[in-house]
């Protein structure tokens, strides 16, 4: 009864195909946007912005990127971390090569490089499927990581081997570099993530999104219906890597300020994969939920002992966090293998029929 769509008639296909055809959903999304754009900037502390919101949005974007490939097109990838790294290094090279250019344009442009590299590593997907494809992406992961270490040109021959984000301004605000205010960074990250999420929602409900899902659900039938497998898969690889690349660039430009090759290791790939799986394969909302869970939970766990007045070594807490996250991942996979997105759907169904069970 809280979520009843009875009486909301749709009189055109246009209305029926809207992103949020149901009034309650529209209200919900408006409320979320209001909180994200108004309430959080007004009330949140700097710590909350830098340690929780900015990384959460960056990871959510990366999870959307991987979701396009794995959740919608059905191609398992373990190389997300490296593709994010390509974006980061490309953005770094671009901003240092063109110091006067707008840094946000450079960040968005950096995704083009990771898209190209992603498409190259997607080429074998025509012949290789499933777990076998995972090896291709692992090759990408370790090869690209090696490139980040061994090619000094990529980090402008820095003695430290790391990339450090230069200070850049836009409209009088410092947007990158150590002096940039958390609130400025937050707005930039929020706009990019929300914008790309909206654009992807459009692609995914149209012809191209459908052709990806056709490949995912039954590649042979898709081929016999005129979907060209190579083009379609390569496009998914390119789009996915573009988004991951932008997320990787944002990760260093608006969050970490500096990054080294180990920032983009296989651990990051797994982290993003977890977000996608726990959030729900093939769901954009799920990418946000998964990112929130995987990122925010460990942050919170760090504070639990302190709040309980216990004095435990930071190391022990970290180990315990690992254990708890691992156990929770298994727990959630058992409870709902289709992720939080499905849990949310079930909850909506319950709300629809409340107070009756069904």
């Amino acid at each position, binding site marked *: 009864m809280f979520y009843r769509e009875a009486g909301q008639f749709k009189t055109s*296909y*246009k209305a029926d*195909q809207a992103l949020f055809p149901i009034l309650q959903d529209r209200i919900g999304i408006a409320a979320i946007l209001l909180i994200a754009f108004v309430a959080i900037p007004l009330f949140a502390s700097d710590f909350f912005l830098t340690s929780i919101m900015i990384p959460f949005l960056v990871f959510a974007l990366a999870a959307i990127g991987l979701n396009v490939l794995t959740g919608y097109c059905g191609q398992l990838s373990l190389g997300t971390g490296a593709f994010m790294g390509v974006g980061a290094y490309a953005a770094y090279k671009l901003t240092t090569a063109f110091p006067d250019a707008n840094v946000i344009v450079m960040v968005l442009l950096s995704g083009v490089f990771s898209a190209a590299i992603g498409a190259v590593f997607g080429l074998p997907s025509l012949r290789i499927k499933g777990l076998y494809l995972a090896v291709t992406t692992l090759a990408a992961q370790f090869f690209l990581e090696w490139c980040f270490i061994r090619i000094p040109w990529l980090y402008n021959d820095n003695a430290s081997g790391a990339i450090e984000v230069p200070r850049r301004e836009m409209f009088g605000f410092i947007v990158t570099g150590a002096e940039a205010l958390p609130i400025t960074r937050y707005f930039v990250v929020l706009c990019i993530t929300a914008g790309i999420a909206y*654009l992807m929602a*459009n*692609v995914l*409900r*149209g*012809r*191209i*999104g*459908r*052709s990806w*899902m*056709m490949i*995912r*659900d*039954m590649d*042979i*039938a*898709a*081929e*016999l*219906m*005129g*979907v*060209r497998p190579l083009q379609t898969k390569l*496009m998914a690889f390119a*789009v996915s890597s573009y988004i991951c690349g932008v997320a990787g660039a944002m990760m260093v430009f608006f969050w970490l300020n500096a990054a080294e090759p180990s920032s983009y290791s296989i651990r990051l790939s797994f982290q993003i994969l977890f977000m996608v799986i726990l959030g729900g394969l*093939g769901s954009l909302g799920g990418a946000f939920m998964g990112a929130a869970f995987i990122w925010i939970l460990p942050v919170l766990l760090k504070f639990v002992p302190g709040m309980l007045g216990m004095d435990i070594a930071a190391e022990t807490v970290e180990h315990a966090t690992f254990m708890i996250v691992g156990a929770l991942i298994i727990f959630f996979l058992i409870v709902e293998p289709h992720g939080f997105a499905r849990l949310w759907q079930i909850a909506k169904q319950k709300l629809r029929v409340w107070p009756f069970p069904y």
Partner: protein
Amino acid sequence: MNAFVADRAPAPVEDAGERELLLRVDNVSLAFGGVKAITDISFDIRKGEIRAIIGPNGAGKTSMLNVINGFYHPQEGTITWQGKVRRKMKPYEAASQGIARTFQNVALFKGMTTLDNIMSGRSLKMHRNFFWQLLWRGPAEREEIAHRRKVEDIIDFLEIQAIRKTPVGRLPYGLQKRVELGRALAMEPELLLLDEPMAGMNLEEKEDMSRFIIDVNQEFGTTIALIEHDMGVVMDLSDRVVVLDYGKKIADGPPEEVQASQAVIDAYLGVSH
């Protein structure tokens, strides 16, 4: 009659053997390693007819359909499609030149709704590129709606309005088969290949499906090639029948003629060699 039907001319009624040639396979042979699936088969399909391919299990019927729409590539023989001779077709070419099919084991896109499954049949007819799709508003949305109209016509035709938004994985088998037919129809094919459209159905479902097949053939003028084990259905529906056994053609002709053929009776009832 709805808009989807209106823009197609009904097939002229005449004797099947006299009609214009749509597809011909000549001396096609197909082998997997040492196993010969199809040996030297030739037959033709003429515009507007319902052509049945029958035979015992393992006779090579499905392999034959796979050759026609380019999924398998024969080692020998040629395929003539609308006057063009070729050795093999690519699945993509076959689809874009108007060959659609359904599958023996339902091959729907399980994660998608009925509507999306049928919309997927329109893929080849939609052309707005990635950047229009990103925007959605404007051309991409208009194209989507135009095709949605056509798809809704098919949904009406197959009487599956109520399951429009249901993920196909949850549908019962009979309805899945019907959605699969709808998906193939959405491609507006010249030639529709049906691989056992009635397998595993009860009598009522078979009657419905037969009615749809006849309607598609007569109202839309679509040429149909179907594989079916139910002899009653085959004899009633088809204009001409080709019979395969152990990868070889053993009979070809109108239903009554084939029914009377000694080779066919031997193949079905068995004969001591």
